[in-house]
């Protein structure tokens, strides 16, 4: 009988186990530095800032599970932001806003479909393709809005900022919905295909899995999640800036890896990356509360991230050289 409670077993069977530990540690540290962290107001103001990264990380997680990578997500976030900021405007109507929210989602799907077409149908390298399209989308955002400006009506932004159903932040409900949807998807046939294609695409093809469609779909999902993140970030800031998405790409990849997914595909889930994204955001929080000199901020943040990424490997190394 195999022991099902060993470290190895927990790590492989529950990929979200380690990110959960990291999340717990970062929450505790943050709590010490910011004792009012769990107050309704503070919690909400934190979570609404975290949500865009969480959304992008979910899309990125699906792409990585499917054996790809998407570095054009930041560009998609920027396009959506600039579209909303220029088309709706600070004095636009609510109806206009929702119309352009719909347009934004379509733009995200289209951008993802372009990535998917190049990668799945033309068989181009995911990293090169999305690197190229990231400039395409980022450039388009700059074309739409060359200088920061524009915006959406403050009344609409407030919906996102202050809605707290059941006295809990809106973000909690959105994350809960995402996790439930993922739970469902991962137990459907599509979910199995996703892991199969990411794990070993040749074997999946020989088993008659529609590999091309699955590869196409992951970029569409990622485009959709990036568009949702773009909408969230616009409602958060209330204004437009073509550079707004540029930092989110690498953060989303880091979040997914901290979340226990593998670069090589076929492993992981979405729960871990969601926790990874929150952990990453909390680290940012901790740094600002620890009163670290601005000059050191990047260095400290990077060090924490490197340690978090290396921790599972270091633990394995120690275990191997042990008795």
């Amino acid at each position, binding site marked *: *009988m*195999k022991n099902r409670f060993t470290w190895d077993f927990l790590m*492989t069977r529950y990929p979200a186990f380690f990110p959960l530990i990291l999340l717990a540690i970062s929450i505790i540290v943050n709590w010490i530095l910011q004792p009012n962290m769990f107050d309704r107001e503070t919690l909400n103001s934190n979570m609404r800032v975290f949500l865009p990264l969480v959304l992008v990380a979910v899309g990125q997680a699906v792409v990585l599970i499917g054996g790809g990578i998407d570095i054009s997500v930041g560009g998609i976030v920027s396009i959506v932001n600039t579209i909303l900021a220029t088309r709706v405007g600070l004095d636009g109507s609510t109806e206009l806003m929702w119309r352009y929210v719909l347009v934004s989602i379509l733009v995200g799907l289209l951008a993802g479909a372009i990535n998917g077409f190049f990668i799945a149908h033309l068989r181009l390298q995911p990293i090169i393709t999305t690197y190229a399209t990231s400039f395409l989308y980022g450039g388009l955002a700059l074309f739409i809005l060359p200088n920061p400006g524009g915006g959406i009506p403050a009344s609409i932004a407030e919906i996102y900022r202050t809605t707290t159903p059941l006295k809990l932040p809106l973000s909690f409900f959105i994350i809960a919905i995402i996790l439930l949807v993922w739970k*469902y998807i991962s*137990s*459907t*046939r599509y*979910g*199995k*295909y996703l*892991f*199969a294609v*990411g*794990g*070993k695409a*040749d*074997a*999946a*093809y*020989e*088993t*008659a*899995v529609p590999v091309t469609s699955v590869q196409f779909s992951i970029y569409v999902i990622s485009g959709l999640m990036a568009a949702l993140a773009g909408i969230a970030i616009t409602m958060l800031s209330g204004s437009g800036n073509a550079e707004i998405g540029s930092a989110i790409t690498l953060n989303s990849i880091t979040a997914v890896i901290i979340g226990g997914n593998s670069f090589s595909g*076929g*492993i992981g889930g979405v729960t871990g990356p969601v926790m990874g994204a929150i952990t990453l955001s909390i680290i940012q929080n901790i740094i600002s509360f620890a009163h670290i000199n601005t000059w050191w901020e990047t260095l400290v943040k990077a060090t924490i991230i490197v340690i978090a990424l290396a921790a599972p490997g270091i633990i394995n190394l120690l275990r191997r050289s042990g008795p």
Partner: protein
Amino acid sequence: MAKSLSARNIIKRYGGVEALSDGNLDVHTGEVVALVGANGSGKSTMSKVINGVVVLDGGQLFLDDKPVQLSSPQSAKKLGIATVFQELSLIPQMTVAENIWLTREPMTAYGTVNRKEIDKKTNELLSLFQGTYKTDIHPHDPVASLPADEKQIIEILKAISVDPWLIILDEATASLDSRQVTRLFDLVKHWKEAGKAIVFVSHRMEEIFRIADNYSVLRNGKTVGSGKMSDINEKDLVKLMIEKESVFSFSRTGSKKPDKADKPMCLEVDGLHTTTLKGISFRVREGELVGIGGLRGQGQRDLLLSLYGAKPHSGKIKINGKESKFNHPRQAMKKGLALVPGDRAREGLLYIRSILENLLLPSWKKYGFPLKIAKAKHDAGKIAESLNLKMAGLNEPVSSLSGGNAQKVVIGKWLMRQPSLLLLNDPTKGVDVGTKAEFYSLLTNLCNEGKTILFYSSDDEELIGLCDRVLVLHDGIIRTELSGETLTKENLIAASLGISNGGAL
């Protein structure tokens, strides 16, 4: 209902190379057809043709005498054709159940996979090989955690889970032990009676004669003969496969093996322990060819890797009388050891790099700085020639070679270092008869030159025909040592199964 599939005058080219120039095959329900041929003769291509993985350049397939086109694995599957692939079509990260039922998962009304049902159906399939597993397989075990033979069994179960009428077994027995092969053959007989057709692709003559009703021989992409198994003997079948007069003989059998009792000890092992080995002790004299036998996964791989310093171990190892403790293969290499690993694709070769680079990889140091590339090329060329390596040129990638020739590169790269002790892990696995014969004479020659060889093989006949002595491993210990009179097939199999000590000790 009787069904049949025929392939007529199949042509398939890969780039400029003609893998099949005139391939023919007939299969009917209720029969087992052995598709035989040397490596590179087009067997694998032929099975890919029947399975729809490759697109034809010429020729026609007929299903029940009606022309049919197989454009993808999906279309073959719809027609009830399933394949057990030589390079497994399993996804390592996924579980046993997910792998077997991929694309055909039992679903619930909500569109999700029915976990109870999938586990139940998986357990039913797993029970077909009940009793041949090392540990119990659970439907939720990830495939990556299983040993090679159990992965192979999962691949077989996956193929039959479709309930096909035609099953192609492409080298399906290569990584199975004798107990598992026997179980598979019982199942094949059962399927045959149940009206299925089986195409059996194998290098192992004994198995072909055990299970097949008909044969079809491929040579250089052409079907050169077919007929009933009962009308042909082993020698004639091999003759069909290789154009030359039979080279399939063990050069050492018959002739009296030279006595090596007066030679100095080359290798002394005492109480070797690893995670799988439970105390191994033996001695090997210089110039001996010692076999390691037993069922698969009884610690043979660990034994070779420990000696080579590639696996943490405890115990005493003496090489040429001097105590040696290797923590890294580099140290073992310096002492004149060489290891030919079991998985040549993963451990033995850099597939996409040239033959030259592969041959020189362990020896670059010898050619100084800056590299004396002309001399290196010359030496590599000489080795390639002495091994009779069939290649388009030293600069061609190893991936362009057939299995047997690729294995020659693995051996060649070590021979360039003039090793004194060779550790071989199943070097003839998936190698055609012609090349096997070349290996046998090569190994014999090396021993006569005074080199010592420790040789694990999953082919019992090979061990009996070639080795001075055979150590039979069972469950991490040396169950028995067979030599001379006691070195017979019956004893070897009995000891492998742990039934008896095989008359010795």
